[in-house]
């Protein structure tokens, strides 16, 4: 279904239908492409980054156009951990600016939400190609609380 969208030469827009996230159209040039997928999700390669439903929210959702029911919560780590992005090593093949996102786990009690600072998503802003890095330095953990002291 998503593949069929590639043939739409007029708009070059991919129409995604998802039971979970609703129907949406993504212009092909707005896709983020992770050629290697994410860790544990090697087939999840093409994503759309959708806006949060509330303007103030730092959370976006990253939905996979290859698997329309697959989506992840991400946030801009800089809004919560200023300076973090600077410490993420730049991929050697990055042509221009890079953007960094981190995956967020939201359990049933959202006050216990955590972000995975150990494995950020690094996207080359020019090519829109990304990769999940693993910062195996001991400095960053997989579960940094987003709301310390909440509850």
């Amino acid at each position: 279904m998503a593949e069929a969208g590639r043939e739409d030469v007029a708009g070059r827009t991919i129409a995604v239908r998802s039971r979970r996230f609703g129907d949406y159209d993504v212009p092909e040039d707005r896709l983020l492409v992770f050629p290697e997928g994410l860790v544990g999700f090697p087939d999840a390669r093409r994503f759309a980054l959708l806006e949060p439903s509330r303007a103030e929210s730092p959370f976006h959702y990253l939905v996979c156009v290859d698997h329309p029911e697959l989506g992840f919560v991400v946030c801009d780590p800089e809004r919560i951990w200023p300076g973090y992005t600077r410490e993420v090593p730049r991929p050697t093949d990055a042509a221009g600016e890079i953007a960094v996102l981190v995956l967020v786990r939201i359990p049933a009690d959202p006050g216990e939400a955590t972000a995975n600072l150990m494995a950020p998503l690094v996207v080359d802003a020019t090519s829109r190609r990304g990769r999940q890095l693993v910062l195996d330095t001991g400095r960053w953990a997989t579960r940094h609380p987003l709301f310390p002291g909440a509850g």
Partner: protein
Amino acid sequence: MLILTRKLGEVIRVGDSVVVRVLEVKGNQVRIGIEAPADVRIYREEVYRAIRRENEGAQLEDLERLDRAAIAWQKRVEKT
């Protein structure tokens, strides 16, 4: 599983471009050097499993959950 015996400093090649070398053996610890192209991801097993588990946990089950997190965020912002 393929099982090979190697001495200190000896090498195993995986395909044409991956080289695995035994660098040091001390008690029950082995130091291993790996040379591989940049697009070959190399992880310690426990790290790989931890990241995969977190990725699985970061899957969005429904949009309502995202909303609740946004509300929690709003509360945090108002507090500070």
